[in-house]
C-alpha cells in the first residue's frame, strides 16, 4: 500500500502541474458557473435555478467533458515515454501497483479539478437559491466521479497496449472511444429505434442506455435527481422493463460496476504480459 500511495502522490503532483488538467479545471469551472448562471438570466433576473434544476442542466456537460478529459489525460499519463517506462517497471514493484497507484493519483487530480467547477456552480446557486435540492447536486457530483473512474479505466486499457511506444495511436484511440461512447452509440440507438415499432424501439433505447457507460451514468443521475419524471413515459417503460425501481438500480449499478472493474482488470492483465 505504501508503494501504491507513493505512485498516487507522484501522479497527483504531476497531474496538478499539467497544463491539460489546469485547462480542464478552468473550462469546467467556467462552463459550470455559466450553466448555473444561465438559470438566473432565463428567469429574467428573478433568481438562479435551485440545486436540483442546476444539476439536471449540468448532466450533459458532465457526460460530454468528463469522459474526454479522463481519456486524454489518462492516456497521456499512463503511457509514458519509453525511457521513463523502462525505469519505472524495472523497479522491484509489481506492475499492478504502478498502474493502480497512477490511476488513483489521476482520479484525485481530476476530482480536484471538477471540485472547482462544481464548487463554483454550487456557491452561485447557494448564494441565490439556498440549499434546496442539494441532494440531487451531490448525486451529480458522484455521477461525475464515477464517470471519471470508468473512463480512467478505459484509458488504462488503451495505454497498456502502448507502454513506452505507440502513444499517439493510444491517444487517437482514446478520441475514438469518446466519440463512440458519448455520441455514436446514442445516435445509432436513436436511428435504429426510429425505424422500429414503438415496443421494440423503446427496448433498444433502454438497452442502449444501460449498456453504454455514459448512458448508464446519465440515466441513473437523472432518475436520481428527478425521479420518474426524468424521462416521462420512457421512465415508466424502463421501470416496467427492469421490474421496478429496485430493478433499475440493480441494472444500472451492474452496468456501472462492470465498466468500473472490467477495463481495469483487462489493463492489469495486459500490463502483466507486456514487453516494455
Amino acid at each position, binding site marked *: 500500500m505504501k508503494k501504491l500511495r*507513493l505512485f498516487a502522490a507522484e501522479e497527483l503532483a504531476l497531474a496538478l502541474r499539467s497544463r491539460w488538467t489546469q485547462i480542464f479545471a478552468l473550462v469546467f469551472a467556467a462552463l459550470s458557473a455559466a450553466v448555473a448562471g444561465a438559470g438566473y438570466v432565463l428567469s429574467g433576473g428573478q433568481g438562479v435555478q435551485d440545486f436540483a434544476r442546476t444539476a439536471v442542466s449540468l448532466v450533459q456537460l458532465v457526460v460530454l467533458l468528463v469522459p474526454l478529459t479522463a481519456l486524454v489525460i489518462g492516456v497521456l499519463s499512463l503511457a*509514458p515515454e519509453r*525511457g*521513463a517506462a523502462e*525505469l519505472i517497471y*524495472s*523497479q522491484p514493484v509489481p506492475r499492478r501497483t504502478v498502474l493502480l497507484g497512477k490511476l488513483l493519483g489521476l482520479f484525485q487530480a481530476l476530482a480536484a479539478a471538477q471540485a472547482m467547477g462544481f464548487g463554483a456552480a454550487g456557491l452561485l446557486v447557494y448564494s441565490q437559491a439556498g440549499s434546496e435540492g442539494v441532494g440531487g447536486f451531490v448525486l451529480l457530483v458522484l455521477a461525475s466521479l464515477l464517470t471519471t473512474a470508468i473512463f480512467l479505466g478505459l484509458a488504462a486499457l488503451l495505454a497498456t497496449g502502448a507502454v513506452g511506444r505507440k502513444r499517439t495511436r493510444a491517444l487517437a484511440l482514446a478520441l475514438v472511444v469518446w466519440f463512440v461512447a458519448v455520441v455514436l452509440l446514442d445516435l445509432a440507438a436513436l436511428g435504429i429505434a426510429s425505424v422500429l415499432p414503438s415496443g421494440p424501439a423503446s427496448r433498444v433505447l433502454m438497452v442502449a442506455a444501460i449498456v453504454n457507460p455514459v448512458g448508464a451514468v446519465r440515466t441513473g443521475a437523472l432518475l436520481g435527481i428527478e425521479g420518474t419524471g426524468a424521462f416521462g413515459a420512457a421512465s415508466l417503460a424502463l421501470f416496467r422493463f427492469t421490474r421496478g425501481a429496485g430493478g433499475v438500480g440493480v441494472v444500472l449499478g451492474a452496468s456501472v460496476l462492470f465498466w468500473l472493474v472490467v477495463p481495469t482488470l483487462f489493463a492489469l492483465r495486459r500490463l502483466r504480459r507486456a514487453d*516494455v
Partner: protein
Amino acid sequence: MISFRSFSKSFGAQLAVDGLNLEVARGEVLALLGPNGSGKTTTLKAAAGLIVPSAGAVMLGEPPRSAQEPAAREVLSYLPQKVSFPDALTGREIVEFYRELRDLPGERVPKVMRFASLNGAGERMVGTYSGGMVQRLGLAVAMLPEAPVFLLDEPTAALDPDGLCAFDALVQHAREDGRAVLFTSHQLGDVERLADRFAILVGGRLVACLSASDLKDRLAERGVMRLRFAPVEGRDWTAEAVLPAVRPLAPAASWSGDELIVPGPASVRPRVLDLVRTLGIEVRGLTADEGQLGELYRELVAEAAPAHGEGAK
C-alpha cells in the same frame, strides 16, 4: 549474479536474441558489444525484467530468482538507453521518489546528487535539463540503491567529460564493492578501460566472449614492433640482408624505409631482437604498438556476420 540460461526473445517473426548463455559474476564488469540491432538492449531489458523471454530464463541474485519476479529486482539497478523523466518534476523530487520507492535512507539523496554533479540543478524542473543532465540524473537514480547488480544501456552516450569521470568512478566503486555490472556501449575506449570481460553479440547470437587477459593476448597478436638499426660502414642492413634471417621467426616481417617491421605476437619480439644482435646489428630505435580493440571487434563481427545475417531488433 546475472545468469542468462538459453535465453531467446522474438518480436513477432523477428528473432532478437537466440539461445544466449552468459553469466556475470559478483565483482565482475562485463561489456556487451555488437552492431546496432544485435540484441544488446533486448538482453539488458530481459535482465531488468522488462521483457518476457520467448524461451529460456534470466536469473538474478543469490540464490537465483527469475528477473520476472518483482522481488528479484530488489538486487538490480537499471539505467535505460534513453532515460527520460517527467518534465514537471525537479531533479531532487525524482531522486526522492526513487529513494522512497526503494525504502532507502534520506542521506542517499544529497550523496548521489553530488556524485552526479547535479547539486546546482536539483531544484530545477527536468524539462529545463540538457540531454547530458538527464543522463546524469539517470545515473544518480541508478546509483541510489547500491544494488548488487548494475545494468547500464549505453550509459556514456550523452555524457560530458565530468559525467564520464563520474561514470568511471561509479563502475570502479561497483567492482570494488563486489557488484556485478553488465553494460552496453559503442565507445570501445570506455569498454577497454572499464570491463573485465567482453561479450560480442551479432544477429542475436553470442559470437565471442573474451576475458581482459584473453583480449590482451589477442591484441598483442595484432601488435607491431618497429626496429631501426645503427648504420655501420661497410655493412648492408637492407631488406635483402636482414629479412631472410628474421622471416623464419616472423613470417610477416617487412622492410619500410629504414625500419624493420615485425607484426605478430609479443612473444616473438625478444627472439627477433636476439637474432638481430647475433647478426651483429646494433639496434638504434625500437617501438612496439599493441593492436586496437576496434580492429579486433570489427574482425570478430565480420567473421560472424555472414553466418548470422543482419542484426536483430
